[in-house]
């Protein structure tokens, strides 16, 4: 297929390029064209200098000094930027944590027997989580243990006392917990104002942000950002971690397995169902029901060769990690999957779902099915998902997809014949398994310098960056420097599509990393899951720190969100920084208009938490900077 040069600038992914050409030929609009129509975008917004919090506004601060330097209430640039920034953190932490609430509630219902649609699949994980939380297991029924875990998790969401979250106390490394306490004490002493860092309630810290950023409350950039940090810790070590751990109990802890990625996983002669969004509770059921004999038979009755469930974004990552369900693509491919004309049904739950899909699906035979009470899509078919009737709901969705196979216009189908294989499923447990049960071999490799350090890459695609370009180039540059790359979310899908998650890719790594990968038979880029599974990276970092008797910020670790877009990414970046990991970002977040906020995030945070933000547009320069940081940490460790 001949691809226009303009399309090549949009994505480096060959399957996406083909679909973008098809879209252009059919005159179908995608996110790239819509973003183009948004140009020029507002400079005040880009710099974070616009405040819409009260009805005296919108107020804007003139970055060129000529116009207003204060909002109507007197808030300066840094107050406005800090308020806007932590509201982004609140949004991101809320999305992750509310995701975590659902499995916690489900666990409680499964434990009590109220919900018979799900089971406690991973008893080993159940016991491991219980042990972390100090719940007795001996001689107790697994349902009783599960009920205790659910109670502690749900209590962490809604408790009103001043105690730190139980999950944070149970999972964060000892030294980091003490550090956070000390930071709060020091900041309070220095400012003579109580400043908290350790989260008290997952929901409470988010509500606290909405309160203190309300008109006329907190105006001090430092105090505001500290609360942002607190809510982000409640996300990373709280809500996200609860999501990961309980989903593992309910659906199984991911194990290393082979899978395929990219749009070519869509089938020419099977019923294609795409599960898109973030939560695995329904998609698990869709996978289960679709693989039943009854449904297979029904599909054949409708002339299809079977049923092909594939994933998109993080719902996709969840079923990819646990069942090896093929993944069709990452965020910027959601429309492209529909444009193949081969999708009978796309089922969506929450987060990162373009509302444009509803209208797009009308150009094809595709059913666009929304399922969450929290997510309505004008133009979609809404099939309300209730956990207590999960089987019925999944059956309805799968049947609807099968029946829609009759309507597929085979002449209009174009599926790019592009896929790549990937080794996925690197939960912390799976990584330790691969290492022979302890983190020692990894630590030894880091100590010897075979692996210089570890970079965790996360998050999003953003059409402001050539799709997948930064994800892939950064990862390639890092592994060549003997830096192990781990990651989640849309990065992980990009890496899988690019073949970076194959054991053979070890040949592109530096000699040290290559030898380690070949010895352990693992790829140099590890898929650790969905975006809530960033908690797996925290847990891994914590395990390494505790094993060495150091704090996380002593370790040669760096984080990156190189094509970030969502508020969730802001929360993730902040909890990495709070946990002691320097974090690279691209594109520039909306903070550049405030010197004090920039200073706090790029410098002060480093002095206080050991983690800080830095921004770099060029992947190779970013990789160099990461290597520099890693070498500095190695030097300080004396390795």
């Amino acid at each position: 297929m001949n691809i226009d040069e303009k399309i090549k600038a949009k994505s480096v992914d060959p399957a996406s390029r083909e679909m973008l050409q098809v879209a252009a030929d059919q005159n179908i609009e995608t996110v790239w064209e819509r973003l183009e129509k948004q140009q020029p975008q507002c400079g005040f917004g880009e710099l974070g200098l616009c405040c819409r919090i009260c009805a005296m506004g919108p107020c804007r601060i003139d970055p060129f000094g000529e116009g207003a330097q204060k909002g109507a209430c007197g808030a300066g640039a840094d107050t406005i930027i800090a308020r806007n920034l932590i509201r982004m953190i609140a949004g991101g932490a809320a999305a992750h944590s509310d995701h975590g609430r659902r499995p916690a509630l489900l666990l409680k219902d499964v434990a009590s027997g109220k919900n018979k649609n799900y089971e406690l699949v991973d008893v080993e994980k159940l016991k491991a989580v219980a042990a972390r939380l100090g719940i007795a297991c001996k001689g107790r029924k697994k349902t009783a243990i599960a009920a205790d875990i659910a109670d502690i998790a749900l209590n962490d969401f809604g408790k009103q006392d001043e105690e730190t979250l139980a999950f944070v106390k149970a999972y964060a490394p000892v030294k980091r917990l003490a550090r956070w306490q000390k930071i709060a004490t020091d900041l309070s002493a220095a400012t003579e104002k109580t400043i908290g860092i350790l989260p008290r309630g997952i929901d409470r810290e988010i509500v606290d942000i909405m309160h203190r950023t309300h008109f006329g409350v907190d105006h001090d950039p430092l105090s505001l950002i500290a609360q942002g940090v607190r809510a982000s810790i409640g996300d990373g070590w709280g809500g996200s971690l609860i999501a990961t751990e309980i989903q593992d109990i309910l659906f199984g802890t991911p194990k290393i397995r082979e899978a395929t990625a990219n749009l070519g996983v869509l089938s020419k002669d099977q019923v294609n169902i795409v599960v898109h969004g973030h939560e695995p509770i329904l998609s698990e059921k869709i996978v289960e029901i679709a693989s039943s004999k009854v449904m297979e038979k029904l599909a054949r009755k409708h002339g299809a060769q079977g049923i092909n469930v594939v994933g998109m974004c993080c719902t996709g990552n969840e079923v990819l990690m646990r069942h090896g369900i093929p993944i069709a693509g990452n965020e910027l491919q959601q429309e492209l999957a529909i444009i193949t004309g081969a999708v009978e049904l796309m089922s969506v739950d929450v987060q990162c779902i373009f509302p444009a899909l509803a209208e797009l699906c009308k150009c094809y035979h595709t059913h666009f099915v929304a399922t969450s009470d929290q997510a309505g899509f004008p133009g979609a078919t809404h099939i309300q998902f209730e956990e207590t009737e999960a089987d019925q709901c999944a059956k309805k969705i799968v049947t609807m997809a099968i029946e829609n196979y009759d309507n597929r216009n085979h002449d209009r189908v174009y599926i790019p014949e592009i896929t790549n294989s990937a080794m996925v499923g690197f939960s912390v447990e799976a990584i330790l398994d691969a290492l022979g049960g302890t983190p020692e071999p990894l630590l030894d490799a880091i100590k010897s310098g075979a692996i210089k350090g570890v970079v965790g890459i996360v998050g999003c695609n953003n059409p402001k960056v050539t799709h997948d370009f930064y994800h892939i180039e950064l990862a390639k540059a890092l592994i060549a420097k003997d830096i192990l790359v781990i990651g989640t979310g849309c990065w992980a899908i990009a890496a899988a599509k690019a073949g970076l998650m194959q054991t053979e890719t070890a040949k592109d790594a530096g000699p040290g990393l290559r030898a380690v990968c070949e010895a352990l038979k693992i790829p140099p880029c590890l898929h650790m899951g969905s975006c809530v599974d960033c908690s797996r990276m925290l847990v891994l970092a914590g395990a390494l720190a505790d094993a060495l008797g150091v704090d996380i910020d002593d370790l040669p670790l760096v984080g990156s969100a190189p094509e970030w877009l969502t508020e969730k990414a802001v929360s993730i970046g902040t909890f990495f920084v709070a946990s002691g990991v320097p974090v690279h970002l691209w594109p520039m977040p909306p903070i550049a208009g405030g010197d004090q906020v920039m200073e706090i995030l790029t410098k002060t945070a480093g002095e206080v938490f050991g983690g800080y933000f830095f921004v770099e547009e060029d992947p190779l320069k970013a990789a160099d900077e990461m290597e520099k940081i890693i070498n500095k940490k190695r030097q300080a460790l004396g390795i």
Partner: protein
Amino acid sequence: MKELLIRPELCLGCRSCELACAVEHSRGKTLLSAIRENPLPQYRVHVVTDGRGFLPLQCRNCEDAPCLTACLTGALHRDARGVVTCTTELCVGCWMCIMVCPFGIITQKHEERRISKCDRCPDREEPACVNACPVGALIYAEIDDQARLQRQQVLAGLRTL
């Protein structure tokens, strides 16, 4: 010759033209670098409001420009494009042009006793302010073309002028 025209009824007062103008007259030419320059770059288009509407106003390049007549040193002159331009080195900061400008669009340069005014972006095909306007309140077009378009719009009943 193309002229810089204003459709004030379309202006939402977002001030994107002001920012784009400052960026175009900065050294780094990007928003992120421009806001950190010293001295800060200066915009030469101003969004004026009376509380009822907005007017994004910049040099109108008058034919019989009072500023040209008033300039004692010849700093202000009409360049090959027909644009009233200032040779900064010749400006002595007498403010005569500011006093006579009927639109008040000439201002003082930051921290200098010299003037700052619209140069209609000599390095660009389309002035930065026009390019930055999200709603088409600023137009760069041949007068005849624009007048024809507006006549058509009257006919089509799309606008009441």
